[in-house]
């Protein structure tokens, strides 16, 4: 406990905790929607796009304004991925895989050829797995994160009835006059924003874990939408907090530690639900 309190005196640790909590909150809210709409894999695809975009920003020597490169590119990819073409020549899952591996390849290629830094492998590794970037956030990045996350939460709360309607039954929602394309676009944009933010926390390879684990865990326990949403948020935030504290105290990589926390909670809940299921 003393060690933790000691660490909390450093502003960068406090920033990291604030940002971590907000990102995990947003990603879990969004995760419920993506999992239910069978879009779980999109988080993964988009994170690779964000990696490619980050490489591009490095090549353009825009690392300080990297968000201006990464955000629009990832948002654009999200819009393309979530667009459901009935006559699409390429199926959705193949499309995601193609976009994601291409971005990954392009990203690595660019970083390898044009990187200014001496240690390319370390750069790539830290972008993919997050390593310490959560602890090196600037004040500006923290504010950007706080504002964007609060916007996402606010939108989620205010649009909750409509979000439920469009997630449960898109055709019915559209028949009752809702502009479902607009909502899908909104969800795509929010997904992209969250993923770019989450790259700081867990790195681009591990983002899907933040999106998927908490909502799946919540769905094992709860049986209505509101409790699933709330429990997913609670699980995600607690895992992020515990994960970050453990990482700080024991010096483990932040992203991987958080994901391990999510995995452990999921496993425990899953095993319990198995036993409960037998009892029924």
């Amino acid at each position, binding site marked *: 406990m003393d060690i933790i309190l000691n660490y909390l005196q450093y502003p960068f640790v406090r920033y990291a905790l604030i940002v971590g909590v907000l990102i995990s909150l947003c990603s879990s809210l969004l995760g419920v929607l993506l999992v*239910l*709409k*069978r879009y779980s894999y999109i988080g993964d695809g988009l994170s690779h796009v964000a990696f490619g975009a980050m490489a591009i920003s490095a090549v353009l020597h825009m690392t300080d304004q990297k968000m201006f490169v990464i955000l629009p590119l990832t948002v654009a990819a999200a819009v393309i991925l979530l667009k459901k073409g009935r*006559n699409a020549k390429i199926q959705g899952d193949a499309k995601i895989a193609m976009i994601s591996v291409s971005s990954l390849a392009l990203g690595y290629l660019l970083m390898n050829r044009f990187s200014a830094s001496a240690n390319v492998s370390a750069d790539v590794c830290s972008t993919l797995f997050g390593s310490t970037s959560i602890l090196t956030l600037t004040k500006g990045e923290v504010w950007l994160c706080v504002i964007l996350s609060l916007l996402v939460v606010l939108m989620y709360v*205010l*649009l*909750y*009835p*409509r979000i*439920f*309607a469009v997630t*449960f*039954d898109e*055709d*019915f*929602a*559209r*028949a*009752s*006059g*809702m502009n479902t394309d607009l909502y899908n676009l909104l969800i795509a944009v929010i997904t992209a924003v969250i993923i770019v933010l989450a790259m700081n926390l867990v790195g681009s390879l591990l983002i899907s874990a933040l999106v998927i684990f908490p909502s799946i865990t919540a*769905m094992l326990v*709860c*049986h*209505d*939408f*509101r409790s*699933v949403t709330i429990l997913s948020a609670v699980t995600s935030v607690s895992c992020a907090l515990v994960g970050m504290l453990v990482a700080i105290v024991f010096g483990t990589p932040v992203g991987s530690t958080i994901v391990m926390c999510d995995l452990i909670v999921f496993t425990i809940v899953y095993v319990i639900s198995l036993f409960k299921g037998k009892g029924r």
Partner: protein
Amino acid sequence: MALITCRDLVLGYEDGPIVENLNFTLNRGEFLCIIGENGSGKTTLMKTILGLLKPYSGEVLFGDGLKQEQIGYLPQQTLVQKDFPASVEEVVLSGRQNHLGRHFFYQKEDHEIAKKNMEKLQISDLRKKSYRHLSGGQQQRVLLARALCATEDLLVLDEPVTGLDAQITKIMYDTIRSLNKEGMTIIMISHDVDMALQLATHILSFEDTHFFGTKQQYLSYREKNRGKAA
């Protein structure tokens, strides 16, 4: 004025029209059954009426106070819904989404109407149950209650008894019949021609060429065609 008027409607996708020159009207309190093979245009017509598809040409007009977005739609279940974690109450209430208007959240009136429709379809005791733990028949009643929340005038039912056993099917049909008796106008897509003839006041058939008329007109039309075939 008629609740729905289809005028010179041509239905189809990019490849070309499936159904041409479709004209019919439906008045308050009537019960229209749409029958025909798969791919004959039943679903396309229904989606056009609901505004999910644009007609190739021609138009669908709404009258007598009906707005397109205030049709109560009972769709066929999708795979996503079968294991969706939502309570019965949440699903039924979501039918009021077209009454949200400028509000962010459902109002007291919406909750009351949802409650009333759950009572009407005898699913009040399932209120807190999870949709994914219900039987097929119960799920269908929940979706019907949701459709009732969306409309006061017109229900559109897409094969409402698919996958239900004989006993539940009968209960479902009884419910639909009594809704119609109470004054609800109904459009139902069905495979089951015999049942359609029992329930409907009007038939729209896509068998070889399309036919629209009252039940009696349809029966004599069918008789005549049989005569030709023989």
